[in-house]
């Protein structure tokens, strides 16, 4: 078994276990911290997939900003910080059945497809995927428009969230 496979199994176990804890943990701060563990595992997977830039951005954006925002939100919206009641709906068995069905359906569709055992072609040593990504994001015949739209979206979200959360007195 190659080293990359061992890393994959380790991080996949980390992701799945933490994701289960995210949806089942009673303490919401713990759920947010488990989310961070899961996102960290995803960052490791990006590194395994030769997308180092995405791995680092995952840590900066998700762990550095989003997860901390979640922790703040949990702290701001808790009457007392240890809210330890039942955290799931009464209809949770139905949700479990639905999500199992989703997984089963995806599994069935995936196992019928014949491109599954594909192995990645090695990236030639001369190509710099980081530079390629930068060019793709800024060249007019590639993805500059979606990139700029994304930045407008972020600005709109910034203004909108400030407006919504502002205390209007």
């Amino acid at each position, binding site marked *: 078994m190659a080293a990359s496979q061992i890393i994959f199994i380790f991080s996949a176990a980390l992701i799945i276990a933490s994701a289960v804890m995210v949806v089942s943990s009673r303490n919401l701060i713990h759920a947010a911290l488990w989310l961070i563990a899961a996102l960290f595992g995803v960052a490791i997977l990006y590194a395994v997939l030769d997308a180092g830039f995405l791995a680092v951005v995952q840590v900066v954006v998700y762990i550095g900003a989003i997860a901390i925002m*979640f922790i703040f939100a949990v702290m701001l919206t808790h009457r007392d910080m240890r809210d330890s009641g039942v955290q799931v709906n009464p209809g949770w068995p139905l949700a479990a059945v639905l999500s199992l069905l989703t997984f089963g359906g995806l599994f069935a569709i995936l196992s019928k497809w014949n491109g599954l055992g594909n192995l*990645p072609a090695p990236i030639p040593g001369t190509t710099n995927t980081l530079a390629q990504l930068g060019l793709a994001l800024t060249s007019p015949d590639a993805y500059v428009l979606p990139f700029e739209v994304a930045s407008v979206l*972020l600005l709109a979200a910034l203004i909108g969230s400030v407006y919504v959360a502002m205390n209007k007195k």
Partner: protein
Amino acid sequence: MIPLNWFLYLSAALFSIGLFGVLARRNAVAILLSVELMLNAVNINLVAFWRYGNTASMAGQVFAIIVFAVAAAEVAVGLSLIYSIYRRRGTIIADELDLMKW
């Protein structure tokens, strides 16, 4: 070398766990946490298809970056909505926010 299906099965599992969270959790913040899991499952798929497909075209990574931006925007707006609701109604349990329900 890792076969492609490992990534796809992992992301399917992560997506289903996130779906369970969205459907079953009562707290609105926890629902947003689960949405993040689902978005990450999508991102794993995008990056895996980029790596196992044509690495010269950066489509997969670019889409993943746009998903990052959308996730950040979604969390910002979502959390401020939740906070605003909490200030007015004193609760963020999704079942109790039934003002529009008859």
